[in-house]
């Protein structure tokens, strides 16, 4: 199975990269863009065929290493 983890700064945490990218997009004329957030995507293969069990394991990986709960939230996708 394939796991895809999206890690983003939490809503209350100032995302200076996102802000800079938004300013750049506005500079290119895309004024309709708002709330840009820059995050990180981590994908990997995980052995097994029980997607619920895999999700639990990947969430544990997020809590332990892949995300810092002080500043980051995450979203896990599991695909066959």
């Amino acid at each position, binding site marked *: 199975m394939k796991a895809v983890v999206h890690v983003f700064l939490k809503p209350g945490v100032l995302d*200076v990269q996102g802000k800079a990218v938004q300013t750049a997009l506005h500079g290119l004329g895309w004024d309709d863009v708002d709330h840009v957030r820059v995050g990180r995507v981590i994908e990997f293969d995980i052995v097994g065929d029980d997607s619920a069990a895999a999700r639990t394991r990947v969430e544990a990986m997020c809590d332990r290493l892949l995300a810092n709960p002080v500043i980051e939230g995450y979203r896990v996708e599991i695909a066959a």
Partner: protein
Amino acid sequence: MKAAVVVFPGSNCDRDCRVAIERSTGADVTMVWHQDTALPVGLDLIVLPGGFSYGDYLRCGAMAALSPVMTEVKAAAARGVAVAGICNGFQILCEVGLLPGALLRNAALKYVCKPVDLDIVNAQTRFTAAFGDRREATMTVGNGEGNFFADDETLDRLEGEGQVVFRYQQNPNGSSRAIAGIINPAGNVLGLMPHPDRAFEPALGSADGALLFQSVMASA
């Protein structure tokens, strides 16, 4: 008096720390590799130096926090040994949970490298006692991710409990409440972004960093 400096792959202030501690205090300094599973016996101070441990992969300090030696550092901290994390070392202490909060990308998205004037907010710690009546110090910062962040509740607690030790007079990186350095509730684990190891003799522009190392050794 004995001190240890932990060397991670990508540390680049480890030797600076060694020289700074030796010249400031005369302490016997041992370099400890991050894969080591034991620390020298009888340490008075453990320093996690600045640099870019593990290339800052994933997050600053995240990989270093999982190094074998950190198990020993945590155990030593629990026994009351003084631990100082400088710059990347501060990031590691936050990642490993010995200090609250986290260090974010600088607000201006720029690497900041310059001397900064600091207020000594708490001069009663094991790391600041030698400053005596002084309430200001000058040290150098060099960071791209030195923007201290914690939620308001944590910040209020840090301020209320005297855990804010150093504050920037002019905030160089957007840190919450201009915090430059904090200490744990037990008072033996300090994290700070400014480098005492780059300010330990007048030729470096400031000798204030020497006082920090002397404070620790005087309390040993």
